[in-house]
């Protein structure tokens, strides 16, 4: 029996909810520098950064919508998955009691909120992978419902967009998604894009790419060029922070291509709001490390 990690996982949730990662904050600061002082866009970003600072100093959720907690667990074969799942669920309930999470699990048929963020098997969302290592790593993403609502899946070819089954078609779909979202996804945001897959994996991977280092680029040269192009063209739309108009609409685009079926060519876009809450804990023996 391994050490019980409920408290430590609760701490992961606390940090994720209250302490925005430094690279994200840095992007928001550069966005602020690009906007015209006195404009609504500048004011919105200034407010956002003040809020980020206040949340961190007072250990309060950076946004009231703490989303669906999405966990990515890589566990060594010496560890029992059933134990980890129980500890994650206990930690989620504990973090809700301690007000690091808003109770968000709602029964769609009765409208009843479970009050502790524990729904059925899918709430919280937990992804597992067993690894040949002594290390347990748990990544957590908190993604609010506003930006979840503007996520979208295109099936290429798309006649309306004149988007074919190629990277040019992917570009058109991504820009259309940003246009459709306007300010509703809490811009300036981040795009996670999957090319290919079936419907299910395409959505899952479009969120997984948010685990990538914010500063990395796709190892595929064509995709890394496209990532930059989509970000820069999305910013030409002028939607701006909160949809107030301005230069910063999308701060980063990450694309992953996965094998598709001959008949299907999905382009799936997940939109992450400015409150890009993501943290990792690593456990080796008794040592727990957060980043």
């Amino acid at each position, binding site marked *: 029996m391994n050490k019980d990690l409920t408290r430590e996982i609760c701490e992961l949730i606390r940090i994720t909810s209250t302490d925005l990662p430094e690279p994200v904050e840095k992007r928001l600061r550069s966005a602020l520098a690009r906007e015209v002082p006195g404009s609504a866009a500048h004011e919105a970003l200034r407010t956002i950064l*003040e809020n980020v600072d206040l949340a961190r100093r007072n250990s309060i*959720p950076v946004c009231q*919508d703490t989303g669906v907690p999405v966990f990515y667990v890589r566990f060594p074969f010496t560890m029992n998955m059933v134990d980890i799942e129980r500890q994650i669920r206990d930690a989620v309930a504990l973090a809700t009691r301690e007000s690091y999470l808003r109770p968000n699990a709602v029964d769609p048929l009765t*409208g009843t909120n479970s009050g502790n963020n524990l729904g059925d098997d899918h709430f919280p969302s937990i992804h597992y992978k067993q690894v040949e290592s002594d290390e347990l790593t748990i990544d957590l993403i908190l993604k609010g419902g*506003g930006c979840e609502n503007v996520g979208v899946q295109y099936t290429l070819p798309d006649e*309306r*967009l*004149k988007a074919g089954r190629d990277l040019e078609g992917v570009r058109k779909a991504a*820009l259309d998604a940003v246009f459709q979202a306007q300010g509703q996804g809490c811009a300036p945001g981040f795009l996670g894009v999957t090319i290919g897959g079936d419907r299910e994996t395409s959505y899952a991977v479009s969120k997984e790419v948010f685990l990538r280092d914010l500063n990395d680029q796709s190892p595929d040269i064509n995709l890394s060029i496209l990532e930059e192009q989509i970000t820069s063209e999305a910013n030409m739309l002028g939607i701006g922070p909160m*949809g107030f108009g301005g230069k910063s609409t999308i701060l980063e685009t990450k694309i992953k291509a996965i094998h598709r079926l001959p008949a299907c060519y999905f382009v799936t876009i997940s939109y992450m709001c400015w409150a890009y809450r993501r943290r990792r804990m690593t456990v080796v023996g008794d040592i727990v490390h957060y980043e």
Partner: protein
Amino acid sequence: MQIELHTPIADEDVLRLHVGDTVILTGIIVTGRDAAHQWLYKKFCDPAGDPSSEEKVISEELKSYLHRGVIYHCGPVVSGVDTRQYRILAAGPTTSIREELYQADIMRLFNIKGVIGKGGMGQNTLEYCQKSPAVYFHAVGGAAVLIARSVKEVLGVYKLEWGVPEAMWVFRVEQLPVIVTMDAFGTSLHEQIRAASKKALDHLIGTNV
């Protein structure tokens, strides 16, 4: 322009507001989002509503806060729910467009003069704002801790059985900063941005969709 505003809000105050103005709001606001709008509409706007006497009491109490008042699209993080020692920790706006179907009717029901939310609303609400007159205020999405600090007191809560986010919380706020993005003169910043970004999109993807 920066304007101080207190609830209840007079029509002449609404008519002083234009898209782009920053408003510093003080007074009473009531949170209401998806469940609240649907419930209020079904019970009190739909002729087939038939509210119970208990529901009528809730509606009358809400009216005392919302008459010439402000509704806020928000599902806060609240501590002390078990002991009823409510403390609002985080209280940013939620996306308003989901209430478009009901908003104008709910505003008419209570004579609401202001809606606070994010992302803006559609044609029905804009037309009601012109007729009433009333306005839509935009709060900064996710600025949850900052906004919570303007909440000085929780005066009550209705329908807590819907869960903390969907319940209708009555807040006394001081110096809550918001921006007018839809005014009583038929101007919507959201429409303007959508039209301009549509033009840019057509140029970038070479279509006229």
